[in-house]
């Protein structure tokens, strides 16, 4: 049995709506391209893209996971040209910021008109790379979080709320 959520679906919907309103305002008259980092950000991006009130495009990219000998590389690049586009990079969690910084560098090489970062969860106490986060849904303490796209051993992505590690059975 799962315990009380850290953030329930109403809280998440509220934050998604607020961020979507901010994006709709900030990018009024433009057509931003939202790029989600697979896999955990997919749920957040799906909700966010449907909540904005301006036209936008959606794409995904992914990076190699730790353990690959060659180090981090883009496993899947954004599939559309980025030159001149207003890109919003959507991540699930910013922790050390090292993954995000790598992705930001790769995106900037493709000459977007602008690049902003949006994250569902911000866990700043382990931050190493000082990345500017323009939109964040929640700042979380040092707890392991599952649900709403985030998994534990491949499970719990489908849960509609965010749960802290330890509130569900081992």
């Amino acid at each position, binding site marked *: 049995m799962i315990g009380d959520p850290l953030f329930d679906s109403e809280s998440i919907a509220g934050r998604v709506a607020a961020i979507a309103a901010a994006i709709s305002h900030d990018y009024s008259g433009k057509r931003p391209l939202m790029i989600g980092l697979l896999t955990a950000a997919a749920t957040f991006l799906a909700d966010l893209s449907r909540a904005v009130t301006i036209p936008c495009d959606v794409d995904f990219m992914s990076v190699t996971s730790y353990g690959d000998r060659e*180090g981090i590389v883009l496993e899947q690049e954004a599939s559309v040209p980025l030159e001149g586009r207003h890109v919003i990079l959507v991540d699930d969690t910013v922790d050390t910021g090292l993954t995000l910084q790598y992705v930001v560098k790769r995106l900037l090489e493709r000459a977007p008109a602008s690049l902003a970062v949006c994250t569902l969860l911000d866990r700043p106490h*382990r931050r190493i790379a000082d990345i500017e986060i323009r939109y964040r849904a929640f700042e979380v303490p040092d707890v392991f979080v599952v649900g709403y796209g985030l998994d534990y051993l491949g499970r719990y992505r489908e849960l509609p709320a965010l749960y802290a590690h330890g509130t569900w059975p081992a």
Partner: protein
Amino acid sequence: MAVSRVLFAHASEAELARLFDFYRVDWQYEPRSFPIAWNEQGRPIEFFTPDFYLPEYDIYIEVTVAKPARNSRKNRKLRLLRSHHPRVNVKLFTRRDVERVFYRLKRAS
């Protein structure tokens, strides 16, 4: 610096070094000791040597593998370091921090 050329004090440090390598982040292992206490003659009698320095970020990383209840000695040293060297950016990574960072990375795919 290559992980294989460094004799780390603990496996968690080696693991963190491999993480930096994964991100192609330059790192130095224990490159500098900071005085944190002095005797009456003004000579330093105690030093603190953070485990890593990341030049790109100008940040020192100290890894602790002790349980939180046993971190008081290290926390004291960190407090003194921050007090006497306020411009030095140092961050403490616990074993739990290291484990969680790695779990997130491994599940990212």
